């Protein structure tokens, strides 16, 4: 029972709690106190230190920005206006608040306001749904398109859009790169004749891929009314991120343990059996490492691509907030930054978990 819980913790990435549990049970006191200190207390402490440093930096920048603002007022409008400005700033009136790096408290405020905004928008949405339910039913019977909500998306909607895009891009990358990687891995001739393309295309920046993809998609889908922005961004994400999987699959397939190949030859396995029963299972660990890198690259370039393509998602959220320049915009950008980082981390964890599940290596 106990070991089961501990195993479950380990598998879910919460293994660091193990010493705390043991300590509570009163086992191996000295060792576990040290472990708890190292694995729990010190990391928590480091979070506080991090927040402290951020706070310090933010208040330093705030004061600097304040001085600049006052000086500017003085040089343009004279001493009286400057004094008024200083008073206005110090009264924490939002209208004259200097816009600089937000403090942790500001960020927290930003997160809360984003959440409230989300609640408000979802209420609006469900109200809209109720209101249009009857009409939509009628329209459906008449063969017309349903009326959909077209209001501003909330932060959570943006997250979901981004996740959808990254998932589509990741699938595209996997479905393209794994089969191509297998073929390349099997044929030395093909590998050496195509290698130069891969080497040249691999370092191409996401921006260029985006432009290239939109050139093609714009023409191909000229007469289609599907969501072009979404298609362009997920295809670009797929292209930018697939290289790790392509290279790893090729390497994995071409470097299968020669003993396995020999066994396969002695048994005279068919080409099909050879690939699906020997070569693929043998290269699964490498392929998965590639997929893991692909997913994290996909998430990273997605933000940049959304930002550039103006397609909805976290990237465009960040860009719009930056352009917007409202007094809590900077705080919201920082909130988005942590959300992006956290989701990236979770995606990697999920991949790691799957990898552990299917790995055949001795556990």
């Amino acid at each position, binding site marked *: 029972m106990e070991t089961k819980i501990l195993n479950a913790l380990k598998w879910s990435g919460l293994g660091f709690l193990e010493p705390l549990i043991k300590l509570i049970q009163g086992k191996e006191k000295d060792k576990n106190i040290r472990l708890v200190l190292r694995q729990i207390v010190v990391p928590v402490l480091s979070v506080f230190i991090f927040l402290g440093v951020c706070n310090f930096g933010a208040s330093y920048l705030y004061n600097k920005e304040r001085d600049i603002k006052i000086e500017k007022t003085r040089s343009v409008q004279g001493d009286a206006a400057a004094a008024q400005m200083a008073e206005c700033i110090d009264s924490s009136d939002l209208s004259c608040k200097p816009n600089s790096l937000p403090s942790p408290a500001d960020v927290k405020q930003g997160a809360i306001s984003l959440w409230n905004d989300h609640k408000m928008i979802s209420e609006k949405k469900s109200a809209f749904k109720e209101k249009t339910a009857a009409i939509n039913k009628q329209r459906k019977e008449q063969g017309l398109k349903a009326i959909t909500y077209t209001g501003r998306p909330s932060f959570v909607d943006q997250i979901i859009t981004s996740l959808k895009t990254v998932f589509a891009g990741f699938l595209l990358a996997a479905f393209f790169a794994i089969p191509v990687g297998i073929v390349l891995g099997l044929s030395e001739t093909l590998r050496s004749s195509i290698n130069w393309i891969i080497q040249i295309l691999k370092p191409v920046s996401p921006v260029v891929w985006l432009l290239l993809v939109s050139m093609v998609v714009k023409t191909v889908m000229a007469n289609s009314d599907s969501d072009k922005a979404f298609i362009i961004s997920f295809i670009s994400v797929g292209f930018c991120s697939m290289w790790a999987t392509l290279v790893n699959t090729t390497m994995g397939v071409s470097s299968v*343990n020669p*003993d*396995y190949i*020999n*066994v396969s*030859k*002695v*048994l*005279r*396995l068919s080409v099909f*059996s050879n690939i699906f*029963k*020997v070569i693929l*299972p*043998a290269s*699964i660990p490498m392929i998965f490492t590639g997929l893991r890198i692909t997913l994290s690259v996909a998430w990273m370039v997605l933000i940049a691509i959304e930002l550039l393509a103006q397609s909805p998602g976290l990237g465009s959220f960040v860009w719009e907030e930056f352009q917007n320049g409202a007094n809590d915009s900077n705080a919201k950008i920082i909130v988005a930054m942590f959300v992006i980082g956290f989701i990236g981390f979770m995606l990697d964890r999920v991949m790691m978990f799957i990898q552990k599940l299917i790995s*055949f*290596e*001795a556990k």
Partner: protein
Amino acid sequence: METVTAKKTMLECVNLKKAYPTPKGDFVVLEDFQLKIKEEEFISIIGHSGCGKSTLLTMIAGLNDITEGNIIVDANRIQGAGPDRAVVFQSPSLFPWMTAMENVMIGVKQVFAHGTKKQREDICKYYLDKVGLGDSFHQRASSLSQGMQQRVGIARAFALKPKVLLLDEPFGMLDSMTRVELQDVLIDVWAKEKITAVMVTHDVDEAILLSDRVIMMTGGPYAKVGDVAHIEIERPRHRKTTIEDPRFYEYRQYLLNFLDH
């Protein structure tokens, strides 16, 4: 005492030559190599490290190209690898993502394609049982110890019912206790199946214990058969009686003498 019906030749190497191309020209490992092995004969090959024993074995297996000469198995010139020449490699080379059973089954399926599923399963179980893995059919190969894995390797090879069994230092990676166990397993299974076998080994005792003939190879390059020892200790053999046989030490001395040169 000669048996009445003379045994047919199962494996023959004729004027065999192997040269590996290197930047400095060909490196000739074997040249003018002759070997004739009768049906139901177990022979061992000993020789210094690097003289070309593995090269010879992989050539017979069809995993290594023949530079010149012929290898004939059961009156046919070999072409590529095939399940008629089963190989037990030094490292067990099981597919770690499969169970013990599946590892044997993948070969049995190739050889007994016509049989029913039940028949094939029975064959796998029979051989796994014979090598002492009766209760580990469904264990992942990766969770088995080295010794256990090599047992599966032996079962996999015998289950193919090959014409020739090739073993390349099959116990070389095992500790001495496990090695002794596995030698006994091999003696037992072989006594039942009597499959023509060629085993490369660097263990002189192992060679005598298992073989009818021990082939001593000269040092490379240009290695060939240097000497042959006929081991006339009666079969079926058992470790204890064989080792206690006075001839065992004569053979042993003879082989060690050859290797000392």
